[in-house]
């Protein structure tokens, strides 16, 4: 399979990337690891006229500590996330999630920013970002903008981001009582359902919870009803079960395909919500 022809530009800075995008006449696409984009291009499902390679912009590479939060450059690979001591210490759930993406080679090339910008309905990261309430830092012609992950994912492949905006980095808040679990699709290993749970705990009591879901519907979102059911509750098995039991209630447009029907997906949403909460609570 062979992609269509395109022009290739490499940006050295964010500003250059943005101006290259602006001058592409709507034909441009940013390229970081390319592991979402290139397969689509090879199948000719995507035919951008200009690829703007942003992978070497120094500003968007690297993982740093920022006053107790972790700043991840958008071009950071999944493998770098998996092996980052800082992430494993501050918000290990992100490393746990990254380790579930694709396979070793894909993790060596695929990037966090690319995955978030692409917003594939079955991608792993978005669930964790939503649950963490991570902040996505965008730069555009008008300057900087920060968007909360919960607001960022709007629909299938659709995010709160203009064509000429670029994800520069992602800020991850600390989270210890957190977990990501997924039901693998056995061919692609995408998430049929992926659930991230981030809990605030006071002893055995959950003071607040954020639950993110991917795979089940058009885009990653929060399961606010589950969050409400957990808030202020002691994390007994009965309370966890009760919260998980309503996990799919608010979901609309649940996906259905040969691997999993809507009914099965809905059931799995409950199962994996419970598993994610149990695991998060045990940490």
């Amino acid at each position, binding site marked *: 399979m062979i992609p269509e022809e395109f022009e290739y530009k490499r940006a050295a800075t964010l500003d250059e990337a943005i101006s290259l995008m602006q001058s592409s006449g709507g034909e441009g696409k940013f390229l970081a690891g*390319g592991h979402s984009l290139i397969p689509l291009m*090879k199948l000719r499902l995507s035919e951008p006229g200009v690829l703007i390679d942003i992978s070497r912009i120094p500003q968007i590479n690297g993982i740093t500590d920022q006053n107790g939060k972790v700043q991840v450059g958008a071009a950071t690979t999944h493998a770098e996330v998996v092996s980052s001591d800082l992430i494993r210490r501050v918000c290990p759930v992100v490393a746990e999630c990254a380790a579930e993406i694709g396979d*070793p080679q894909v993790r060596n090339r695929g990037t966090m920013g690319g995955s978030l910008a692409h917003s594939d309905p079955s991608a792993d990261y978005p669930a964790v970002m939503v649950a963490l309430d991570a902040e996505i830092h965008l730069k555009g012609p008008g300057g900087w903008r920060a968007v909360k992950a919960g607001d960022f994912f709007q629909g299938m492949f659709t995010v709160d981001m203009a064509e000429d905006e670029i994800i520069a980095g992602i800020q991850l808040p600390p989270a210890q009582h957190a977990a990501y679990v997924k039901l693998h699709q056995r061919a692609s290993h995408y998430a049929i359902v992926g659930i991230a749970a981030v809990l605030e705990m006071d002893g055995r009591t959950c003071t607040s919870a954020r639950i993110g879901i991917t795979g089940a519907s058009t885009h990653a979102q929060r399961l606010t009803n589950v969050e409400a059911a957990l808030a202020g509750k002691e994390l007994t098995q009965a309370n966890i079960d009760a919260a998980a039991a309503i996990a799919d209630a608010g979901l609309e447009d649940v996906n259905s395909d040969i691997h999993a029907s809507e009914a099965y997906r809905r059931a799995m949403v409950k199962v994996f919500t419970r598993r994610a909460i149990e695991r998060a609570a045990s940490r």
Partner: protein
Amino acid sequence: MANKVPITLKVNGAERSAEVQPRTLLVHFLREDLGLTGTHIGCDTTQCGACTILVDGKSAKSCTLFAVQADGADITTIEGVASDGDLHPVQEGFWEEHGLQCGYCTPGMIMSAIHLLNENKSPSEQEIREGISGNFCRCTGYQHIVNAIKYAANKG
């Protein structure tokens, strides 16, 4: 036709320069332009791993990289693994333990195994299986491949 782009990269220790169409996949560049046909193509969707090479020391699927993206990179293919005629321990392991049959997936599998052992000197059976989970083999059932990588780990 889109303009060709000059690239310079290091392949198996030697510097190589070329002008390529931006859409040229790295695997095609290695195979067609450089004649390094040991890297194979087994799928279109970044699953099978037959095209695995090392880019700056890390395993990557060369069918999901444009050659232009590899400009400036240090690349190792299966042809660059043995040194001075001595097989790499992973290659030796594949031979000793019958880690291959038709051999088509083998170069990619070996590259993944090398990456795995670079990151983890003595992987468990499960870690080996996970380390090669991005590489499909239709012939062996993987058991002899696991043995091959264990062999190399014990040697290295």
